[in-house]
């Protein structure tokens, strides 16, 4: 198999389950729902940032329109859950809607990716940005379907499935983290597979892989699709959390958020973006509770990272402790 590496896989699954169990224990040790809220958002946004980091960290492509897939996942989930077609499935409606959200985002990523990967550097960035803003404009224009600027309104049902009731805070917490960890484990397999090393080779020297006889473009496109699908999954989780979807999620400033996280956490370590999401969310919670000047504080923190550390926190720690 192209993607699978058996030894690591077993270890990662074990570690993933362990982390999941620890976080579940954490839920009961710290009963403050504010903390739970932060943790589940860290995983949702972390997933979003990690998916983008496939392109940025491993492929060296600065995609500036990644929120397009986040939004497509959120809107697909919301629209399907509001439709008769999926809600008639009753207890299966949520898993089906989530699958569809990932699928639709993946298809969208295929279409956009096929065009974007032909360009390099800043041209690639601008094209992803342009596609995203086009999608944003379309979401705003299709008021009858998307609700325009007010977002998808009226909520949607969250019927229990397999004994999981996402209406309950604990179920949502455990479910979101479980899905995220599984995805992260799979992502890890992909990154450590020959395919993943192919991506790094493309990043470091785009001539050699071609000389070795595999197609740069094909690798880039597959990476783009994987990144888009995972962003769609993150978007669908966010939509489940907020029982809605909003056009802000397709705006360019939403694409800047995972960039911040990647910068804060580090783009060269696998879990860096997740760490970045943690810093970002805590910063968000702390700053908005204490000052109105969120932009000022966030801007200064980013300046410190850009000019001071010159790398993300996890990257810095790993280098500091010399075990990369």
């Amino acid at each position, binding site marked *: 198999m192209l993607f699978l590496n058996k030894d690591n896989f077993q270890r990662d699954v074990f570690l993933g389950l362990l982390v999941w169990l620890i976080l579940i224990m954490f839920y009961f040790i710290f009963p403050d729902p504010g903390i739970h809220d932060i943790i589940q958002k860290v995983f949702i946004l972390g997933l979003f940032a990690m998916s983008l980091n496939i392109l*940025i960290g491993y492929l060296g492509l*600065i995609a*500036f329109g990644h929120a397009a897939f986040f939004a497509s996942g959120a809107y697909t989930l919301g629209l399907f859950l509001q439709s008769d077609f999926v809600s008639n499935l009753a207890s299966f409606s949520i898993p089906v809607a989530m699958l569809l959200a990932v699928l639709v985002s993946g298809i969208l990523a295929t279409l956009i990716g096929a*065009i974007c990967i032909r*360009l390099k*550097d*800043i*041209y690639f*960035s*601008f*094209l992803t*940005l*342009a*596609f995203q*803003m*086009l999608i944003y*404009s*379309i979401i705003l*224009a299709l008021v009858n379907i998307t609700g325009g600027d007010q977002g998808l309104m009226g909520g949607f049902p969250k019927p229990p499935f397999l004994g999981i009731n996402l209406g309950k805070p604990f179920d949502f917490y455990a479910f979101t983290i479980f899905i995220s960890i599984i995805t992260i484990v799979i992502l890890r397999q992909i990154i450590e597979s020959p395919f993943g090393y192919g991506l790094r080779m493309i990043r470091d020297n785009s001539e050699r892989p071609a000389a070795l006889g595999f197609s740069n473009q094909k690798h880039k496109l597959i990476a783009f699709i994987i990144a888009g699908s995972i962003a769609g999954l993150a978007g669908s989780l966010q939509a489940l959390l907020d029982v809605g979807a909003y056009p802000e999620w397709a705006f*360019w400033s939403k694409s*800047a958020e995972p*960039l*911040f996280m*990647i*910068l804060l956490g580090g*783009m060269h370590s696998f879990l860096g973006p997740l760490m970045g999401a943690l810093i970002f969310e805590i910063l968000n919670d702390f700053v908005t509770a204490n000052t109105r*000047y*969120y*932009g*000022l504080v*966030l*801007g*200064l923190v*980013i*300046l410190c990272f*850009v*000019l001071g550390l*010159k790398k993300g926190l996890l990257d810095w720690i790993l280098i500091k402790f010399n075990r990369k």
Partner: protein
Amino acid sequence: MEIFALLDCIISPACLLSQAAGGLKIGMLLFLVASGLTLVFGVLGVINFAHGALYMLGAYFSWQIMSITGHFGLSVILGALGVGIFGLLFERILISRVYNADLLVQILLCYSVVLILDDLVMIIWGDEFLSSVGVPEVFQVPPLFIFDAIIPPFHLAIISMSFIVGLILWFIMTKTRFGRLVRAAAVNPKMLEALGININLLRACVFMLGSFLAGLGGALAASVGSVVSGMGNSIIIESFIVTVIGGMGSISGAFLASLIIGMARSFGAVAMPLFTDGLMFLIMVLVLVLRPQGLMGNKK
């Protein structure tokens, strides 16, 4: 889409000319700002995400100078110069550190400056938007009718001023030693350094010029629009579109693209008022797909 509204407009000289004049003014004001962005990119290779924030600073500076001196011309010129100096400091203190860094690092550095400036102007000038600087009395006259087109004299002034600035830029870039050095620096900075040219000084000058243009655009916009934190955020996206369509680094391309965007906005408001933004992004996508180097850009 109201295609008939557009057809009606095109066959009526009054409509055609009025919308075209409006589009010209939108385009020319945009050109002032976008030319600065494309200049900086062309020479320094930096995508200055903070260009819109500099535009906003231009508006605030000119508002401040207007409220002190009460002189319109002074407020525009000093406002723009102030931004030029600010840009110089910005380049020396921050941008110069990331010339060789990742694209991501450059973008985030500039974006963090946007976040900081947006809050800073609110701390200095208050949370609420400020009133416009106002138009000098000479221009507070009824609009002119030129071949059925309705044009306020002030717009004529803005159009001709942008035109002159464009000409000066073109002259500087093609006919002077400075311009030749700048163009050479864009291609091969190492070579220039070997020739004993102070490349840092050159870069600082270019960045200052780019900031000056952003500030000038902002100061002029402030004359007929409210001044508010975050006002640069829409102009920066439009400037990106112009830069991309025209060809990154190309001043003449920026001129052409600004005109296209101005007309698209002006006639788009007639034909598809609910999708004018989408229209601009569509043009951008098409250009990037069909001709990534832009209309006037050189293929690398």
